[in-house]
């Protein structure tokens, strides 16, 4: 995979349809995610936000009964081609899940896991500390590395799960409901991390909080019942939605 040119979209889907046991959860979705942008996917519960996110790094195929049709490209390369290693895809396109799901190990082991799986040898401390610094969990004291991940607060756990994905230095970061179930202070911290990360990588986030999409993203996509209803500059979509459903959703009048 070659270096991204600014004009080329980093990620794109073409007529993407994902079915679970025959039931279509995403229908004919075509969109382009430009390099270096923060893109939000909003929509009601069950609209397919998570499934769209998971189709970008081939996580859907881990669910039994999942079938993907259409194409997903990363820097122009078909991600679902036969010769593509899904593990490599997931390293380049990192993901932070809705639940932090940390491993019942130390903070260090959690961040180092992806590096070790990739086969990075030698001392991993620099890489781990770098990732922890980005999410504000590194203050120079070694004791945090040995702390048990499950002893951290909910907000710290979420930030650790972001650090875990960042340690692999992904080109793209997929965030599924990054602040779900966090208190306002912890949410604000996570949002400031996302804001700072936009210079490092392209970010796609799924959120059921559309005000968050408004605060963080350059572009916003509105999904409804698996269909892409509207996609464009966040400010335009929020102030002047072209689609009736988008407007109903944003104003809280969706039945």
């Amino acid at each position, binding site marked *: 995979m070659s270096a991204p040119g600014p004009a080329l979209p980093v990620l794109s889907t073409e007529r993407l349809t994902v079915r679970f046991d025959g039931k279509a959860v995403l229908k004919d979705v075509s969109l382009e995610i430009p390099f270096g942008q923060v893109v939000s996917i909003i929509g009601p519960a069950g609209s397919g936000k998570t499934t769209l996110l998971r189709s970008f790094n081939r996580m859907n195929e881990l669910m039994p009964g999942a079938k993907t049709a259409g194409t997903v490209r990363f820097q122009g390369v078909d991600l679902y081609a036969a010769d593509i290693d899904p593990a490599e895809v997931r390293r380049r396109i990192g993901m932070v899940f809705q639940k932090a799901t940390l491993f*019942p190990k130390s903070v260090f082991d959690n961040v180092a896991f*992806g590096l070790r*799986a990739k086969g990075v040898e030698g001392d991993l401390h620099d890489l781990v500390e770098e990732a922890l610094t980005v999410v504000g969990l590194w203050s120079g004291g070694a004791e945090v590395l040995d702390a048990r991940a499950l002893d951290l607060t909910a907000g710290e756990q979420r930030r650790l799960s972001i650090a875990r994905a960042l340690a692999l230095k992904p080109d793209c970061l997929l965030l599924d409901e990054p602040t779900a179930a966090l208190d306002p202070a912890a949410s604000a911290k996570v949002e400031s991390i996302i804001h700072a990360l936009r210079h490092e990588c392209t970010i796609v986030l799924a959120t059921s909080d559309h005000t968050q999409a408004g605060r963080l993203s350059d572009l916003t996509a509105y999904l409804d019942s698996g269909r892409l209803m509207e996609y464009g500059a966040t400010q335009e979509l929020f102030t002047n939605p072209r689609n009736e459903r988008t407007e109903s959703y944003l104003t809280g009048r969706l039945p």
Partner: protein
Amino acid sequence: MSESRGARAGVAIRGPIGAMGVAAALVTMAALILLAGVLLVEAREVLDWRFFLNPPSRVAAEGGVGPALAGSLWLTLIVAAIAVPLGVGTAVYLAEYAPPTRLVKAVESVLTNLAGVPSVVYGIAGLALFVRGLGLGPSILAGALTLTALTVPLVVVNCRKALQAVPDEFRWAAFGLGASRWQVVRDQVLPAAAPDIVAGCCAALLRAVGAAAPLLMLGAVSFTTFAPGSPHDPLTALPTQIFAWAARPQEGFLALAAGASVALLLLMAAMHLVLFANRRRRKGTLT
């Protein structure tokens, strides 16, 4: 954790359902104490250290469980050495690798059914297959292979449950970080399921150690003057020894049967210790 448990127990004892639970627990414990007490009283005259080493004798007072104890130890070791790797490997394949095809589902349901087959049926199969078919005769090896056939499905069923109890989110988190399937299984799923896997293997082995029926079918000897020194020596084991002594009309042999039962319970208790150690370790590292 212990605090909330104590609180829960306190609440439970107050209600009528809690009282029934306590009563049930007391009855179970009383039955266990009664059983051990009866065995010890019956066996009081034969139980000394020589009893655990001596071979059986025509004279009841001189008999011992030496060969039978050695036979049971042989059986346990061989069964564990074959059934645990085979069973755990099969469970890992079925739970983590196998696609949910009809064939795989059929294999799973066959294994579940095999785990419930009465042990005496394995005895008949073992007689035909190992004793006669392979010409092993009524040897320790034939007994061990028969008990292995009985144990493997249990190990598979228990370990598959242990693996399925690991939440999928763990697997996704590891896959999401670019791990291969084997890395996910080795580094996350197996460590998380390890305590339940050990417990499942122990439970299956305990069933094999206590099985008398299949070994009787194979032709286990109840009178041998030497302890088996290799897998090709004649098959003898504690459960069959208990059965043989209990069936004799002469005075004194019932005490020997009770003594042999104590020996069998001690062997099983030793295996339970492994479970306890394992449970303590789990408390130390997880949750």
